[in-house]
């Protein structure tokens, strides 16, 4: 222990730029994510597990007439990519931020000159990076193990990349806003998982969209996961299938527009309701 005074303040004092701070936050978030081995394991393994299990259980092809057949893994992969993106962003952020609120990390950050935007951007970028890594793993397994095709044209590839980024952003920002509903970090999973689970069932992830009753389809249409799932199918699957399964909404426009609207809404909700410091006012 030394009591020598640290050296004096340099003359020039200007704040680091938002870009530098966001980069620093992103780097530390990614570092934290990969050091949490349980989290890494489940984030990357769970979607793979779903792909393997569901492909084993539902082995039948989808048949829509002569020359119009796709096998189950081909149908299922886009849905599980959609669901994985939401899980990595929405579920992970909502629960981990709730824990950080409880442990006082956010209060600690709020006491520094770090702009809130840098915190949000760091979180968002981490979610995007992890989602991209997870999706890449899914694609590799899909292509090499299940012989699933990739997006057929450069345009579809471009759409796929844009959709992936947009989905991750929507999930991340929604997760940040959703923490407002979590009163106690110990119950975070109980508040976050059920709605996500229900949405997976009714959004055409685990069960075929066409097999769902119209009223469930109507409910799912209100939420982003259905549009993310449809979007990824548009990127991967042939057009005849989309018309058969989704009808008029099939295309790149509607999912992008609706998800962009969701992103704006989620951002407004997060800015309005996010609490840096959970603290019962006495």
């Amino acid at each position, binding site marked *: 222990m030394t*009591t020598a005074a640290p050296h004096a303040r340099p003359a020039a004092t200007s704040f680091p730029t938002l870009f530098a701070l966001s980069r620093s936050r992103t780097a530390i978030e990614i570092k934290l994510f990969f050091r949490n081995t349980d989290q890494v394991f489940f984030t990357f393994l769970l979607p793979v597990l779903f792909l393997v299990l569901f492909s084993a259980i539902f082995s039948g092809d989808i048949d829509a007439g002569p020359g119009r057949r796709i096998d189950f893994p081909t149908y299922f992969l886009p849905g599980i990519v959609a669901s994985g993106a939401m899980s990595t962003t929405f579920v992970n952020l909502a629960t981990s931020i709730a824990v950080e609120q409880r442990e006082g990390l956010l209060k600690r950050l709020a006491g520094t000159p770090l702009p809130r935007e840098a915190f949000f951007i760091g979180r968002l970028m981490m979610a995007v990076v992890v989602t991209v890594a997870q999706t890449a793993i899914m694609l590799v397994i899909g292509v090499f193990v299940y012989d699933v095709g990739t997006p057929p044209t450069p345009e579809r590839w471009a759409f796929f990349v844009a959709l992936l980024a947009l989905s991750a952003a929507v999930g991340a920002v929604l997760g940040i806003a959703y923490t407002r509903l979590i009163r106690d970090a110990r119950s975070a999973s109980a508040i976050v998982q059920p709605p996500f689970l229900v949405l997976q069932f009714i959004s055409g992830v685990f069960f075929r969209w066409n097999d769902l009753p119209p009223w469930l389809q109507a409910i799912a249409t209100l939420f982003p996961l259905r549009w993310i799932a449809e979007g990824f199918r548009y990127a991967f699957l042939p057009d005849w299938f989309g018309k058969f399964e989704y009808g008029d909404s099939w295309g790149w426009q509607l999912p992008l527009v609706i998800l962009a609207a969701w992103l704006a809404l989620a951002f407004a909700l997060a800015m309005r309701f996010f609490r840096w410091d959970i603290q019962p006012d006495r």
Partner: protein
Amino acid sequence: MIADRAVRVQGLRKEYGSFAALKGIDLEIAHGEVFALLGPNGAGKTTFVEILEGYRRRTGGAATVLGNDPGESRRDWRARIGIVLQASTVFDLLTVNEVVAHFAGFYPAPLDVGDVIGLVGLDEKRTVRCDKLSGGQKRRVDLALGLIGDPDLIFLDEPTTGLDPEGRHQLWDVVRAFTALGKTVVLTTHYIEEAEVLADRVGVIIAGELAAVGTPRELGGRKTALATVRFEAPGALAAAPPPAVPGEWARRDGTVSIATAAPTETVRLLTEWARTRGFDELPAITITRPSLEDIYLEMVESAGAVTEGRADQ
């Protein structure tokens, strides 16, 4: 706003619904001063400090900290204050060096990361992950994060809770090194000794009011409080009544105690009297003045009695 005072608070109020947590506090803290806040749990200490830190909003009165309204929480203002919260922050997965370096990046002119880690005594734990640190070592990380931005004013909310006596003394040294640079410290603590050793002035918050402010030597009239002269009075001393010395006397279980404003004169007269009775020494004689702790406890107790009295009406 005039910034001639590090902290200036006038009529500060905070209500939670119908409950008044702070009932109009007036206080000024000078630049370079170490100010300690004492008070029982629930008296409003943390509410008061968190308003000054910009975490909570006041419901009435005025407050400036380093010339700024803490309610605005401006970024350049945030860069000039350091905060050590009551509860340690959890950075389990990062090393000491990573955490401190990361926080250093938030500030326009941070101190050297290695210097600060050395200053708080964590040199050997630099590359150790925070989940491997002891409670006291985590507290030092908190202190390092409060210091890293090179603040002009630092808030320390019960900084030594959980530290062993050695760690406590080391932290006091850090605070002294910090104030030697002319910087201001606002400290809350449960350790009266800590306030006495570190603080230039002490304030006592009881039931949302600033019950007393003063230097540790004179708080609550301590400087002018009566001294107590005590001695054991066996045999010839016990048989006779004490002579006409100044002060009130009392005898209990063979010990005489005299509360007096003039202890020197009291002892002189007592000694003469004892000689006539064959005692060159007054057995077990002591002269005591109330400690800061005595004064503080008395304040808290009498305030408690008043509150109960009000509740009865």
